[in-house]
């Protein structure tokens, strides 16, 4: 065990830091979910990143990456968040689909999709859930009917992040009409501007729109858009979900920055608040720290050829619960101002804590609810019998 950075890693950190200092937009970009303008501004940022070959540093150079390892990816993420760089509008592509394409795609598919993904030329939405298929994802009803070299897609997807403005979406479809549950499903890509595709934004509790419904009526896509063998969609999708929950969905740096801001907020109001809050603030910093250490441990194992297992589930429970506590602690510090909108004249330094709190409430729900995660831990990690 060696927890010191090599000189090369230190140099790499400096390289990222100085590039970010030169390129990160001074003014924060407007939300990529709220408007086409905000979305395109974030696409531009993705293009800027890829010009610096920072689009996805772990990918091979041939796909616009740098072929770096996961430790270097963590260093990149740390500097990315440290610099306050924009959220990744293409996270569905680069963090979820990308690694899966790398593992299950054909050479043609990889070269067709990965480069355009890393460059930001094609932004991806995910299309897993359906109205009756939430925690029970295997209940998907949307169909992909084979017709020559094409599939014809029919169905109704929901909770698709980025789907309003994105270019492409990937989702699960039933390619075997007679199939049940996990069988007969395939992972298929479709363009969101294809004939027969209609998207509808979903308003969240804070009025913002981050998710959308997708209605598909006889949407024709080439069989080339199917990832992996027909009927293997479920296992491929689970691999994606595992990777998602396990490592890349929530970068440790995200919480370390949030914890730092919480400590700053605490120090700014230390005089007004009860001593008990200090323990809560310290606890949040501890948890952000613990999460980062756990990811370093997983990354070290994966880099050495290990595979991610049920720890994907423990990670997801930990960060989602930590995120709620962190934001509740901030609201406690803000006191009576916590309920104010940023636009309120008396808002002072309320910042985005309330928005962040609402978003944190979605954490235990999406990417597989924490109830499902606890089942997985109990059954796969502890070996308890299925119900």
């Amino acid at each position, binding site marked *: 065990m060696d927890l010191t950075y090599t000189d090369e890693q230190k140099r790499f950190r400096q390289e990222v830091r100085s590039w970010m200092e030169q390129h990160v937009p001074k003014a924060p970009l407007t939300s990529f979910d709220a408007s086409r303008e905000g979305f395109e501004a974030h696409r531009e940022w993705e293009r800027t990143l890829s010009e610096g070959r920072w689009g996805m540093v772990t990918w091979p150079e041939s796909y616009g990456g740098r072929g770096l390892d996961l430790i270097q990816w963590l260093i990149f993420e740390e500097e990315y968040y440290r610099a306050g760089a924009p959220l990744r509008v293409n996270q569905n592509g680069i963090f979820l689909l990308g690694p899966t394409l790398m593992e299950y795609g054909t050479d043609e598919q990889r070269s067709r999709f990965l480069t355009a993904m890393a460059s930001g030329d094609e932004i991806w939405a995910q299309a897993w859930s359906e109205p009756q298929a939430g925690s029970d994802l295997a209940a998907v009803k949307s169909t992909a009917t084979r017709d020559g070299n094409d599939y014809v897609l029919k169905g109704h997807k929901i909770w698709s992040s980025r789907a309003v403005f994105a270019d492409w979406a990937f989702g699960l479809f039933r390619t075997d009409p007679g199939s049940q549950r996990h069988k007969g499903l395939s992972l298929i890509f479709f363009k969101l501007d294809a004939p027969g595709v209609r998207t509808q934004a979903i308003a969240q*509790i804070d009025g913002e729109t981050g998710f959308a419904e997708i209605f598909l009526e006889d949407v024709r896509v080439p069989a080339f858009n199917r990832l992996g063998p027909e009927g293997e969609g479920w296992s491929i999708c689970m691999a994606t979900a595992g990777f998602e929950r396990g490592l890349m969905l929530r970068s440790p740096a995200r919480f370390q920055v949030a914890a730092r801001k919480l400590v700053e907020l605490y120090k700014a109001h230390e005089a007004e608040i009860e001593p*008990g809050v200090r323990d809560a603030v310290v606890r949040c910093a501890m948890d952000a720290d613990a999460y980062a250490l756990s990811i370093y441990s997983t990354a070290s194992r994966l880099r050495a050829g290990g595979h991610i297992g049920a720890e994907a589930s423990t990670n997801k429970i930990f960060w989602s619960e930590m995120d709620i506590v962190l934001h509740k602690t901030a*609201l406690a510090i803000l006191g009576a101002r916590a309920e104010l909108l940023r636009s309120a*004249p*008396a808002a002072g330094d309320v910042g985005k804590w*309330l928005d962040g709190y609402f978003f944190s409430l979605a954490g235990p*729900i999406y990417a597989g609810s924490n*109830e499902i995660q606890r089942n997985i831990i109990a059954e796969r990690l502890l070996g308890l019998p299925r119900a």
Partner: protein
Amino acid sequence: MDFRFTDEQEMTASVVRDLLEDLCQPADLRRLMVAGQARDGHRWDKIVEMGIAGILVPEDVGGLGLQPVDFVQCAEACGYAGLPEPLVENAGVALPLLAGAAPTHSLLARALAGQITVALGHGANPFIADADTAGAIVIERDGALHLIEPGAASLTRQPSIDPFRRLFTVEFAPGGIPCIASAHEAAPLLAEAFDRGALFAAAQQVGIAKRCVDLAVTFAKERHQFGKPIGSYQAIKHHLASVQVKIEFARPVLYAAAAALPQGDLYSRARISHAKLVATEAADLAARTAIQVHGAMGYSWEVDVHFFLKRAIALETWWGKPALHRARVAERVLAGALGPESIFFQEHDNA
């Protein structure tokens, strides 16, 4: 010793409950938002017709002369309904204060008749709720009470995440505003107003908590996953059962606090603060659990839970943030009499 509400108390509460069930459903809230109006005129007229504006105002100055314990379940019902209009703050907090400070003031008579509402700028709250729609604002400055009539001060809206909370800060030229009670006269009135404010905020939180549980239970019975209603899974059951336990042990504290409020002593203050703390915890856990039970839907604007989540967030610090109330309970626990025989103590018992 009888820990049950009287028939009269139950009747008053059920009148309010029934009225709000008819006129204050989430669909009504959404309609009001779209209309962009401060109040639902029809609903408010019906509320005024109930004639309970003066419920806590002494009879000799034109009120009904009832006690907080007679109103506490009404406030609970307002929380359950997520009522936008200021029934609780007007009838429960502001009017008894105004009656104490200026019993003969003409505006009090108009307020008791339901022609106007009175907003209150109490030092415990940084903002004044419903100041723009009020026919008068009673405001504390340096401990003294002043009465602001419409137009006599400039109001600044402070938008809240809760679309139905109309918060304002107010500025006015000192001197231009009549003083209705000196700091000496105002002190006891402000202290009792704070107790009422905290008590009825707690009552609303209990109502909010119960509403969130009801919304979650309804959904959990209908929503199927893995071929069964999600409400049949132990994880969902135990989440909601834990919330219910919090509610069941907040209610008796709330009702005992309401009964004790007139004591105005160490013990009643602590019980009111205890109620505010546990009611707020119940509402917080209930709202978050309801969202969790609803799954992704719970995070959507379309589902009604967020109205109650936001009200719960606002009421957590309204009329004293938790730290303040913890300190008031601590004072009683560390300095007051303890033990089984002290459960219903009053300070004069010890004298």
